[in-house]
């Protein structure tokens, strides 16, 4: 479903200019990106990885890098030159343009930069606002919104650009549970390749077909959620989804592993192998 992007990291070492320690160490990974969840403790390098793919490092933040990164066979820099990348940062308020009178203007900002016509801009803003429950706020000033709404606004501004790769850095930290639910429901249905760094492990398990585990700048493992959680079943550093923990407690397995989604838990409880 949707476009699948091929990414290839080869021995990527990276440190921020002026710092000795490596933010990313010997990162090597060849994978297809559909919906990827990025997990790991804080300061693991998740944000750095997202910045790297977005082309922010080197262009905006001075860094020293070795190794290669390729997207769909093309070097990262060349790929970025012809494609639209979308990156949603951790702190939503500081990524607003700081210059929009209304929520509508804020979402439209990137679209004006793309040179689109007024009619097309109007259409896209309405569509995106609807997807993220912001239609009622289009006339309001961004400063009047709550933290969760600002986060949705930041996301809306990015997805309005129709990015070829969407990178999200902890995009639901300030949302209430309902907002988060809507967001992940939307994410599951969206058809663009996504890499999302988040600590909402239950939601990631539902939405993502792949998880990458980062710790201390190193890639610990990349694979299907079920495989990851089984491998790290006894590792306290890696959080497990509720379904997994319940499956563990009940001793029900689904398809050879403890369930990772609600659906799998239901099936495991009903038909699965009991230990």
């Amino acid at each position: 479903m949707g476009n699948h992007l091929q990414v290839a990291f080869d021995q990527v070492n990276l440190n921020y200019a002026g710092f000795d320690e490596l933010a990313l160490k010997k990162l090597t990974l060849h994978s297809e990106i559909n919906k990827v969840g990025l997990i790991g403790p804080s300061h693991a390098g998740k944000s750095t990885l997202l910045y790297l793919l977005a082309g922010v490092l080197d262009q905006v933040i001075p860094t020293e890098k070795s190794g290669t990164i390729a997207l769909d066979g093309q070097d990262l820099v060349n790929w970025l030159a012809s494609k639209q990348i979308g990156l949603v940062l951790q702190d939503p308020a500081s990524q607003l343009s700081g210059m929009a009178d209304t929520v509508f203007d804020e979402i439209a900002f990137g679209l004006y930069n793309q040179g689109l016509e007024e009619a097309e801009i109007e259409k896209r803003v309405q569509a995106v606002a609807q997807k993220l429950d912001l239609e009622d706020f289009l006339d309001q000033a961004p400063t009047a919104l709550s933290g969760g709404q600002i986060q949705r606004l930041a996301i809306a501004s990015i997805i309005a650009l129709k990015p070829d790769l969407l990178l999200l850095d902890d995009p639901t930290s300030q949302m209430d549970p309902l907002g988060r639910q809507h967001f992940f429901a939307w994410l599951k249905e969206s058809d663009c390749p996504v890499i999302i760094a988040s600590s909402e492990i239950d939601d990631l398990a539902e939405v993502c077909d792949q998880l990458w585990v980062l710790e201390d700048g190193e890639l610990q493992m990349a694979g299907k959620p079920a495989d990851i959680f089984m491998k790290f079943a006894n590792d306290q550093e890696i959080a497990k989804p509720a379904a997994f923990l319940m499956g563990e407690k009940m001793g029900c397995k689904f398809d050879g592993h403890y369930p990772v989604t609600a659906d799998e838990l239901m099936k495991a409880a009903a038909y699965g192998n009991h230990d």
Partner: protein
Amino acid sequence: MEAKNENHSMWKFRLTAATMTLIPAAVGINYVAKAFAEGLKLPVWLGSLGTFLASMLAGPVAGAISGFINNIIYGLTLSPISTVYCLTSIGIGLAVGILYEKGYFDKASKVLPAALVIALVSAVISTPLNVIFWGGQTGIAWGDALFAYMTAHHVSIWIASFADEFVLDLLDKVIVAYLAYLIYKQMPKRLVFFFKGNR
């Protein structure tokens, strides 16, 4: 050859995404510092703290532009008379940037002479403005008291006004310089490199 390159890079300035956001941040900091000084009823302005930091982070041109825009926009939004003092702010931005490049903000002991120079620059530029617009006064009580005292004793209006302004500038710029020095030392390295690398 090396020294020449250094000077060249100090004056180089491009309007990048980094400098585009640094300048409003500096203006915001100017405003907050000034508001704090007013709120705490301190006998200084502190309204050039952001300009100082902008100069230290991104060079004299960035500081000068921050100061300039600070006064122009402040004058067009909150307080109309500030506009003309943009000349002073430009002078302060340039002075701080140059002194920073020469290493005067590296050690606490060197900050004091730098602050004196900056106070002098500020007073020299502000005095003609004060004379033209306010008849030589500065609007600060004890500075104007000095001014009144001196003019009462038939001192030239220019000297009296300069004394009024310089005494205030001295106290203010010394405090702001040390504040900027301390704050700069506490800034996360990543931030410092970010703005420096984008000159």
